[in-house]
């Protein structure tokens, strides 16, 4: 017996610090930082801004004024809307809705899609049926589904989230299934079968971890698109009730006064663009890092 052959090489040390990471992955750092800032604003909304609901007819359509920005009770930082409501407060509170919708949809769609995708990919008999159902789901436009659901139930955030989630599930299922189909052909899966591991264990221990990387990337794209779709739904009046401050609602309401008061659209519009941009930047960066093969193809 050769003992020298048994000496394993030492593990590769992880080098470099945060600066090195930032230099290598600028999009992750920039996107992540912007998103983190947005999350902070959403969490701290009641403390950094006033009441978004107060209607003040005397202060209707006041233009933005940046003097004395942090003074308490000041309502014209970003100006006011047609009902005299504080646009700054409404924008800050709108962050909450947008992020909540985006994150909820991303979480729900990936978790449900992951479960279905794992089963469909691993068990061939289930696969044919599940995938036809998914094809049908994919054919439903989220906007029409939302309008129908809102008409039936009267709307609300939960309905909006459900309406956006359902058509996104098939996309996740397809992704997970394709990963499962590749991984299940690897010899280590055969090895697990031949040492008597049950299907549940093979799926959870040997296949599930390989889906996480691509799934995180997919989740960021779902999150970004959900935020846009929610804004679109609100804009069409098929989303969250109009008195609730969401960016979509604000943009919809400002539309009528755009010529007289263009500032009413700036704040929600720019915030919407920034959030989606930051999430997409983060997603692209993660994709390059977690799934380099995919990155080259796209």
């Amino acid at each position, binding site marked *: 017996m*050769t003992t*020298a*052959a048994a*000496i394993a*090489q030492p593990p*590769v040390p992880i*080098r470099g610090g945060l600066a090195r990471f930032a230099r290598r992955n600028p999009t992750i750092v920039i996107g992540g930082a912007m998103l983190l800032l947005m999350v902070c604003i959403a969490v701290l909304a009641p403390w950094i801004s006033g009441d978004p609901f107060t209607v003040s007819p005397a202060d209707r359509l006041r233009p933005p004024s940046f003097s004395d920005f942090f003074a308490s009770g000041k309502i014209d930082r970003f100006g006011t809307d047609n009902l005299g409501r504080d646009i700054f407060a409404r924008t800050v509170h709108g962050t909450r809705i947008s992020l909540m919708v985006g994150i909820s949809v991303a979480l729900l769609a990936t978790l449900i899609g992951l479960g279905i995708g794992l089963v469909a990919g691993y068990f061939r008999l289930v696969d044919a049926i599940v995938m036809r159902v998914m094809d049908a789901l994919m054919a439903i436009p989220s906007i029409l589904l939302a309008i129908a659901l809102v008409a039936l139930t009267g709307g609300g955030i939960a309905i909006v989230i459900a309406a956006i989630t359902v058509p996104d599930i098939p996309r996740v299922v397809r992704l997970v299934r394709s990963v499962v189909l590749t991984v299940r052909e690897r010899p280590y899966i055969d090895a697990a079968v031949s040492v008597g591991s049950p299907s549940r264990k093979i799926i959870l221990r040997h296949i599930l971890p390989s889906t996480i990387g691509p799934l995180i990337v997919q989740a960021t794209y779902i999150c970004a698109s959900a935020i846009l779709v929610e804004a679109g739904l609100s804009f069409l009046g098929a989303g969250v009730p109009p008195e609730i401050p969401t960016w979509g609602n604000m943009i919809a309401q400002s539309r009528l006064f755009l010529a007289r008061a263009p500032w009413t659209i700036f704040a929600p519009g720019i915030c919407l663009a920034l959030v989606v941009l930051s999430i997409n930047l983060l997603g692209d960066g993660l994709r390059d890092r977690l799934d380099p093969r995919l990155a080259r193809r796209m």
Partner: protein
Amino acid sequence: MTETAPILEVLDLRTHFFTQDGVTRAVDGVSFSLAPGETLGIVGESGCGKSVTALSILRLLPPKLSRIVGGRVVFEGTDLLTLHEPAMREIRGNRIAMIFQEPMTSLNPVLTIGEQIAEAVRIHQGASRKEALARAVEMLKLVRIPDAERRVGDYPHQFSGGMRQRVMIAMALSCNPKLLLADEPTTALDVTVQKQILRLMLELKERIGSAVILITHDLGVIAETAKRVVVMYAGRVVEQAEVTALFDAPLHPYTRGLMASIPRLKHNRTRRLAEIPGIVPDLRTPIPGCAFAPRCPLATDRCREAAPSLDDHGGGHFAACWEAGRA
């Protein structure tokens, strides 16, 4: 060694790879020469630098990751390492051709094999389209592809593995190269097909008069095809000799270990095989002494401290070993 001027002389070639974890000395001072028409075998295990040597000769290594940091590659009197890229392109595929292990990845799947062979002929020989295609058919006949006139219009996937390697040989020889580099040309093939391909390659090489460098891990293939052999280990040449001399009396302990460790058909009937203990050294750390010393049964302190030079031990049998005299 040879009376005529060598067609290729590799002198103290050093190729390094630059990775995240440091510098890998993939080729670390390799020298050998090749006479016109000669067949030289380079043998060694994976990671010994045999393929990198071939790629360095043709300067085909990825430029950002690797660099030839020293040495000379003199081909027909010119140092290839000093040439500009356009001049190098004129040599590649024309005067020096290469055959790779996996024919499928070296052939373009969307072009017919006729177009691919003709392309090289048109670029290098300035032939017309028609002439080039005629040359392609002629080459396919030469490598004994049945029904060549029809098959010249087929795509790579329509050929079997052995046939694809024949196509590769046809392509490599289409410009009558002076030197053919064959990197594990038969490793991906079945044994009965391997034998056909090796025979074909040697027969055509005689007809065209090119010299061949055959790179392989298989001592059996070396014994059956090469005239002279270079044995590589950890990026260095450890032994160089005529093929019969090498197999009759290997001088370097690595070569001896390698020969004892291969199972041979109808040869050694003992149950146990000799082992070379340990594993190949990490090429990221510089090795001051002999690279084989940690695994060598004859190693002394001198071996660990100073690298032995490749010395002639009589009759053109070179070995890089302080203890080569000791059996």
